[in-house]
């Protein structure tokens, strides 16, 4: 038992933090927001220079090895800069293919995805129908759906690969509140799908990967919201003193830190529990996703309030964090749903 980063993990954390701070600047993120919500150059250097797109993928398959703790470290740093990156969909898709793809499917896609040559997005569906290997139906709210080359679609007991240019598939990107991760609608009209060889194996890794990435991103959002507000609290003077000296103000900052510390425990507990195959993994994942997303929202909301008028402007980054936090709350199961899963584990199903 040692619940602290190893030296290697601390090094990764430092490297990615530096990478995102230097590269995922507000300017670049805003440029991506004005177009399709992805900073392609950033993703390319993330894949090529850092070589971190393969985290959580076995080395035999060309991945970087490592596990969910390292993936969480990366996602936390990306969240801290609200980077406009397809990391979430990529991580779920690549891990689904690594876990459930045939050798051919892995060969077709993994190296392309890990090098950044192709971008994949992964999403669950309960409504698509599949007849004779052809998919029909609609999928709403697919994050970064508009820029994907490949869709990995998971449904109860089944999973498919669908190329974005497949005949019969139409993709409509929406103007989305969080412009760093626009949502798209996919319309399937008898689209030829390549069924994953082992859907159960893919299904086993997709939700956990998604929850860890979203929870860790949320942690990064929360911490950055606090850090930026602390900086402002020391600078801004009213009534002849720094605003951070007002107790009502500093107690709100303290409340943010109290939640963030718990969110941090939650995220790395969940990541560690998954890596170790611990019995607690399920409850840890539900805890992490619900707690971290709520913490991000609380902190980003406080960031606006504690900045006053400037926090309400488009120019200030507060709204980027606020909108990302809101999106994280809804995505991959709302907090209430995750808590109901926890309740079911300890109280039994609701009568």
């Amino acid at each position, binding site marked *: *038992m*040692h*619940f*602290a*980063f*190893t030296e290697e*993990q601390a090094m990764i954390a430092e490297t990615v933090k530096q990478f995102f701070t230097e590269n995922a600047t507000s300017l670049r993120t805003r440029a991506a927001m004005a177009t399709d919500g992805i900073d392609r150059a950033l993703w390319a250097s993330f894949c090529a220079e850092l070589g971190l797109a393969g985290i959580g993928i076995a080395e035999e398959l060309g991945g970087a090895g490592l596990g969910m*703790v390292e993936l969480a470290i990366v996602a936390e740093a990306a969240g801290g800069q609200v980077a406009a990156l397809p990391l979430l969909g990529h991580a779920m898709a690549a891990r689904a293919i690594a876990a459930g793809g045939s050798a051919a499917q892995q060969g077709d896609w993994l190296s392309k995805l890990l090098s950044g040559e192709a971008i994949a997005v992964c999403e669950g569906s309960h409504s698509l129908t599949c007849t004779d290997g052809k998919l029909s139906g609609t999928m709403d709210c697919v994050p970064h759906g508009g820029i994907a080359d490949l869709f990995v679609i998971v449904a109860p007991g089944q999973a498919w690969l669908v190329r974005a240019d497949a005949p019969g598939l139409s993709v409509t990107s929406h103007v989305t509140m969080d412009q760093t991760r626009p949502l798209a609608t996919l319309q399937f009209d008898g689209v030829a799908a390549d069924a994953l060889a082992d859907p159960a194996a893919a299904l086993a890794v997709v939700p956990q990967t998604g929850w860890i990435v979203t929870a860790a991103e949320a942690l990064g959002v929360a911490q950055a919201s*606090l850090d930026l507000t*602390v900086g402002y*609290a*020391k600078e801004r003077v009213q009534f002849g*003193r*720094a605003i*951070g*000296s007002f*107790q009502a103000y*500093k*107690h709100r*900052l*303290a*409340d943010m*830190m*109290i939640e*963030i*510390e*718990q969110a*941090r*425990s*939650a995220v*790395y*507990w969940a*990541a*560690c*529990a998954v890596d*170790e195959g*611990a019995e*607690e993994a399920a*409850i*840890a994942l*539900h*805890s992490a996703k*619900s*707690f971290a997303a709520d913490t991000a929202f609380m902190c980003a909301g406080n960031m606006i309030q504690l900045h006053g008028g400037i926090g309400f402007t488009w120019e200030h980054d507060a709204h980027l964090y606020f909108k990302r936090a809101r999106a994280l709350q809804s995505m991959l199961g709302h907090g*209430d749903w995750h*808590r*109901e899963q*926890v*309740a079911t584990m*300890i*109280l*039994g199903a*609701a*009568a």
Partner: protein
Amino acid sequence: MKLGFSPEEELFRAECADWLQGQMAGEFKDIKGITTLTAKAERRKEWEQQLAAHKWSCIGWPSQWGGRDATLAQQVIFAEEYARAGVPGRVNHIGIELAGPTILTFGTEQQKARFLPGIAAGQTIFCQGFSEPGAGSDLASVRTKGRLEDGEWVVNGQKIWTSLAHISDWIFVVTRTEEGSKGPKGLSFLMMDVKQPGIEIRGIKQINGDAEFNETFFTDARCPADSLIGAVGDGWKIAMGLLAFERGVSTLGQQMAFRNELDAIIAAAKANGQASNPLIRQRIAKAEIGLRLMRYGALRMLSNTDHSKIDGAALTYKIQWATWRRSLGELAMDVLGQAGEVAEGSEYEWGMLPNLFLFSRSDTIYGGTNQIQRNLIAERGLGMPREPRGDL
């Protein structure tokens, strides 16, 4: 990062569990499951001695002083198994967790030899004399005076809210030893025998009907000159060092007691149908998540060896658990409904959950109120300006 325990550690867990459960099923059956701080105090002093006789009293201490030099993981395991076995809290927790570590860190070899064996053996029960009527959150305002006279410290003044003073043998006292000094300067830290004519103790009844804390009056109370820990004027430094020990491994044992409380709420909700109320389900889930995050927060804090940076998990721990537990008390009453407001017998005495509801109102007060915790977090953790002092 690693959460799991090694096979050797799991063996150690089994050894702890065996012994503790054996005791609670055997000789000490009568104290199993006690949740108040004062019930059966005499038997619990015997329990302290039983722990000591089997070297389970303070396993993290050096073996020279009655400990086992236990590793962090072993201490975590013991704390968990202790509470899991339904063993009541340590009546000498102030001695084991506060006085002992303070003497180990700041005491002379002679002082170690004088006090540690007694604490480890469960024979010297300690209480904490910090707060005074005029010095609560503002601890540095203590006025109780100490002066050196013929090779003895002579102490005059009053402490208040002294937990368990009425069953204690020794008290550590923060006194003002420099005439005319103010604030944290001029304070000294003394160890005093409680059972002497110069010390008078009067119980104070609490909101739950219990009288766990006291007023402690000092009228020419005395202790030998070498009862001073550290140097004259070091009192503040030592008092602050001592408060840091409060965040030690024992917090994990405390969490297992919380686990028992949450389990009792879950059982009550299942029994009375509240387990199907969706709002209660959300709150129970939140409580469950909060408790687990407390565990991992504590493990992060205990695993941290880099003391050059602010440890956020440690700094936020007190307010986190205190607030969590106060909400747990409210949840308990919402689950129980009016039934929770009826005592079991003819005395004003409360079972586990109603007592949790009442007692937990103090968790957010003692050991630094929630407001003081927020000040500390904002000032030490986030570098915000310090609260200005008034001159009243």
